[in-house]
């Protein structure tokens, strides 16, 4: 693909936690995200997926390496510019549905707009309602964040990530809390947005059938990208059949996550 289509590029990203005892979370990760891609990021727990997503979204800073957004280095941006970047160009959907419990579902969806404009223009309010309708929460719009079920909160978070029409949505197990029909609905929705609004997606997931629906799969292990390939039917099957070890890990992981919840 031509260079100008690169939305976000990670060059030699390393991340180390801790002062005395160092934990290496990421080792020399290189990744190019093209415009309008629908990528899934897979790998066992603790392999650095979330850390990478947070660094890509400028929530966290790498210990080494640089992230380039449309060619400009995030490392050179000041705090306010990074905040603006997160607000306008990135939409986050976290693993644990992070809503502000003091605000209603509709207000939670509007928060990124409020941060940007202080007040929400009427058309944004209308858009927020549409998005909530889209995620099936039309009649829960005025419920407080803490008066919604986990799945409902996650769907509000999806709507929230879309409100400022970002270029890139980083979703960390967005359907981890949802049942399979909800999961399919959400993914159908994300896919639709990907096609209609040309929004780029990077989705961390454990679910193979989700990964199977994406058009690129990036696999990580121990802080490194070990596979990165376009998902075009054939190769997909090949990958799924060639990686039984990973699938085992994958299932263990899911059990672990379920237990944690």
């Amino acid at each position, binding site marked *: 693909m031509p260079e100008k289509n690169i939305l976000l590029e990670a060059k030699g990203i390393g991340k180390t936690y801790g002062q005395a005892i160092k934990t290496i979370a990421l080792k020399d990760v290189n990744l190019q995200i093209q415009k309008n891609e629908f990528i899934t990021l897979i790998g066992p727990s603790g392999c650095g997926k979330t850390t990478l997503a*947070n660094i890509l*979204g400028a*929530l*966290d800073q790498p210990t080494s390496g640089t992230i380039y957004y449309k060619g400009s280095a995030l490392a050179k941006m000041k*705090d*306010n510019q990074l*905040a*603006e*970047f*997160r*607000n*306008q160009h990135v939409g*986050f959907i*976290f*693993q*644990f549905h*992070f*809503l*502000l*419990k*003091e*605000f209603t579902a509709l207000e939670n969806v509007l*928060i*990124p707009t*409020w*941060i*940007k404009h*202080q*007040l929400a223009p009427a058309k944004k309010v209308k858009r927020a309602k549409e998005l909530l309708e889209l995620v099936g929460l039309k009649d829960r719009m005025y419920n407080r964040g803490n008066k919604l079920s986990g799945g409902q909160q996650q769907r509000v978070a999806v709507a*929230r990530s879309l409100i400022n029409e970002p270029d890139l949505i980083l979703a960390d197990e967005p359907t981890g809390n949802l049942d399979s029909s909800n999961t399919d609905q959400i993914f159908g929705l994300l896919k639709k947005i990907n096609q209609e609004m040309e929004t780029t997606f990077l989705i961390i997931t454990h679910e193979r059938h989700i990964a199977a629906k994406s058009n690129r799969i990036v696999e990580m292990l121990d802080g490194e990208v070990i596979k990165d390939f376009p998902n075009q039917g054939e190769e997909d099957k090949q990958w799924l059949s060639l990686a039984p070890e990973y699938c085992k890990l994958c299932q263990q992981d899911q059990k672990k996550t379920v237990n944690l919840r």
Partner: protein
Amino acid sequence: MMLFSLRVALRFLIEGKNQSLFIIVGIAVGVSVIIFIGAIITSLQFNLIEQTLGNSAHITISESGDVFKDIKETSRFGIIENQLEESADFQDWRPILDYLVQTNQFTAISPVLDGNGFLVKGGEDTSILLRGVELERANQIYQISQRITKGDDALEGNQILIGKDLAEDFKLNPQDIVVIALANNVREKFSIQGIFDFENESINRNWIFIDLKRAQKLLDKENYISKIELQIEDVFTADNISRELNNQLKALKIDNWKEQNAQLLNALSSQSFSNYIIQIFVLLAVTLGISSVLGISVIQRSRELGILKALGIRNSGARMIFIFQGGILGLLGALLGALIGVLLVRSFTTFVSVFSIEIRPSQMILVMIVTTIAGIVSAVIPANSSAKMNPIEVIRNA
């Protein structure tokens, strides 16, 4: 524009309403103490000043008392003897009076001619101060007419007004006739027209009011007065005003109450000082209270702050959330405190007080502004820690 921060601040305060309510009541208690003590001290001082100065001149204008000047001036009129003896009476006071009236600076302007003498009744006598006044002008300072307890306030010819204690000592009543012997050997009969009560024993025993013109005649001081007595609106400006007067009326001697009451002033200012100290410490306690509650709130809200930061709120926006909370808590606490303060003062006036307590609106507004500012200041440290919070910590630890 920090509208979003304000919105979040309000929502946080409402959501944690018990906590908000506690700290608001805490601030209110502090503010009501400040208002209550402030009102008591101010009113106490006001009463003290009123008692000390209410019925006396704030500024007096008299002859300078320079003997040589007296001789020079008075020799023209040939009354050297008198001037040397009492050295303070002066003649050309009409233009001065007109000038004083025209300045519009004075709430009372009253020319007086004083003369010493003895009141004689039934073989007994007592020294008195005969005060020649223009009743209407003297009323502006002494409210004589309102203080008449027996008889009336007419002052014509040989009619005089005497004090309550003098009347009791000599068993005098209105319409009684007394003899007064003056320093210049004049002895005259006077008719008591009324008896006044100044709530001051020395005045009630010594002062006798008489018409100015009649006094001038009796004392052989046609057209003379001893001094012009003045009152002003704000008693504490007496020294400044008397300085101005001194520039205008160089030949005359200008005295003001501040020079003569240094001790009282000293007492008042130490009282004010202790009042300020109390207020500052209460304010400090209030500030620390708000600060610690908001400090805890930052920790309680760290999850929310992390989300807001991930969603792109700037550090300044995160800081303002707590600055607004501090300001709002301060303002609401101050409003409630003002209300409690007023109720305290009201009930104190109704049930306890012997003097009237007044709350000055300006003082209340000042207290409220200061408390709101204290709320904002106390939010600075929590606000900074909210600005410094790293969203990734929150998201990782969720």
